[in-house]
């Protein structure tokens, strides 16, 4: 049986083993069955617009991609691995400089080999998302599963 604590521990190890996620300072905030929440701190090195201090969309993309992959890995069917097939991100507004960026992802459907994911990115304003994303990921099952 997979308890919530085990799952959180495994997911945290999964994220902390990723060099680039570590480089961006990503942390795992929550994990459920097919859901994940990750965040990363505001960092001046990741500024995309020097005149406003707004974080580059690419860094937000990296956070949402990692969050999406984590949601897939936490699915009840326990995949052995995943990779992004495609990911589309819509930037609704600029993230407020100085604030942490949080991503939430849901793996809302899986087939034998594909997982479908939706994700949202927020700063301190819970009611107005910074970005939303939809993607397809590979869903690798254990042999014989």
């Amino acid at each position, binding site marked *: 049986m997979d308890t919530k604590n085990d799952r959180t521990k495994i997911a945290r190890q999964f994220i902390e083993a990723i*060099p680039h996620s570590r480089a961006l300072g990503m942390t795992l905030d929550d994990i459920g069955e097919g859901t994940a929440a990750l965040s990363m701190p505001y960092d001046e090195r990741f500024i995309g617009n*020097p005149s406003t201090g707004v974080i*580059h969309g690419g860094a937000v993309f*990296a956070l949402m*991609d990692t969050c999406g992959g984590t949601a897939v890995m936490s699915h009840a069917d326990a995949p052995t691995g995943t990779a*992004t097939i495609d*990911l*589309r991100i819509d930037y609704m507004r600029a993230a407020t400089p100085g604030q942490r960026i949080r991503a939430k992802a849901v793996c809302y459907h899986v087939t034998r080999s594909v997982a479908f994911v939706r994700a949202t990115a927020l700063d301190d304003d819970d009611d107005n998302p910074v970005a939303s994303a939809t993607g397809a990921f590979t869903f690798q099952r254990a042999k014989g599963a």
Partner: protein
Amino acid sequence: MRKPEPVQVIKTRRDAALRGLVESVPYIQYLGVQFDRRGDELTAVLPYREDLIGNPLLPAIHGGVTAAFLEITSIIGLTWSTLWADMEDGKLEGETLPAMPKTIDFTVDYLRTGLPRDAYARARVNRSGRRYASVHVEAWQDNRDRLFAQATGHFLMPSRDDG
């Protein structure tokens, strides 16, 4: 008739404009993306680094790094193409940097595993209007014909102050 400018003057001006653009963005510096210029054609180069890895077991470049690299290539390519005419007319004097386009949406197609080595990308501006632009970008590593990722993005152009 005006005499053509010496080639070195032209190259210095173009390289300075490109450098100013690229060096102004901290995130481009952080990822270490560089730009090769041949005339007006730009090739973005992402030198490999260990902390760009997303899957240590394969190992493979992080999908977010690939996306960021493609988005940077698109934005610089788009800004560069809108800058070109002004730059050639010598209207780019002074230190003021052009306002950058804002990404509306960006869709990345992951075609192959990004290998632990240098990556290259080129953007093509398919449409650049007064308000909106559509850009396609391709990335490869060892072979130009074997893309490891491609993307399409839509961008909001900065409003020109001359109305």
